[in-house]
């Protein structure tokens, strides 16, 4: 049980904790990837996908 999952299960049922953990992981990953890759770094890739 990871620390974040343990923190969730302390207050919520297991099934909800799993859902919340997935949501938190996904949100963090999306934000990190979006902000980590500035448009000028991979400009060509952005052009290819229509940005």
């Amino acid at each position, binding site marked *: *049980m*990871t*620390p*974040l999952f343990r923190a969730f299960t302390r207050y919520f049922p297991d099934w909800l904790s799993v859902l919340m953990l997935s949501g938190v992981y996904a949100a*963090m990953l999306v*934000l*990190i990837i979006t*902000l*980590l890759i500035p448009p000028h*770094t991979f400009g060509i890739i952005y052009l290819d996908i229509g940005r």
Partner: protein
Amino acid sequence: MTIAALFLFCSSLIGVAATILIKGNRGLDAMAIITLIAITLLSPISAGWLLGSSTIVVIAMRNSWAAHHRGATISTLAIALIAILFISRELDTVLWIGGAYFTLRHIHVLSEWWMGKIPAPLPIDYLRYQFFLPAIMAGPIHRMPHFERQCRRRRATALQFFSGAERVLIGFFSTVVLASWAVRRIATGTNTLLAEQPEFIRHWVESVFEWLHIYFSFSGFSAIAIGLALMCGLVLEENFRRPWAANNLIDFWSRWHMTLSNWCRDYVFRPVSAASRNALLGLVAAMLAMGFWHQANLYYLLWAFWQSLGIALTHMLRKYPLPLPESLARLLSWLSVPLWLSLTKPMVLFILNGAGL
């Protein structure tokens, strides 16, 4: 986060995979080789510096003449290592990796050996300790006895792997989203709003955001390093322990960048205090070491005096408490921490500008 930092992170992931696939110390030896390759590709001069200094330090400790002249050995090597660190700071055109951290690790091992607390390490053990990629770029300044204990006990489990990966994710979130994006955006907006305000107020507000930025980015980098180590099955020392919950300035410095604070306490504060029989002198010396470790200039000289003054005042208030109700005294003491820290920059710049420097 720079491309160089991302390259080191990706190399660390390869190192983590190697330590999981190869059991025992050989996995960590593989990590050391990956470290050497990654640093050589990015900055050959840093790789040469790390390899050369590690080799000289470990050979010196194992030399029989040096074993009988420990004081002379540690003095010579410590002065040389610190001189090289300061010279490297002057050469801005070169990409330096990890010098500030591995120099302090060298001095830590030399000091422990000088005091007779640890025997001269084997070269392979020393290189394994110094060439641990996750801790190269931004610490923590982990201790060798602790690291060796962790290496002996190392068992990479699924729980440790996923707990470490979660820590890495949280570290990235702190560095990329909170520090580099959120705090910076709010700071830029606030600076625009305060453009007409007096310089002191602008510096004060800038200082608040700088502390927040340093906290989120540096604690994030530390979390990434600690998380990567945990994925390998190693528990490294923590660097931050909820510093904003500190109830006074002394408590704050025992929670903020703990591995550096502990280093300064053990290798600067204690020896200077013991030799001079003056704790205040030891405190100023420790704060100067901490300030000059960041950058050796007039700003950090005054920074060190300001922090020393804050800690000395905290000691005085502990000895002669103000006649206030306990809850109010505790609240004021807690508030004094961010107030004193955020006042560092405006006060130092005020003095420097006033003196025309």
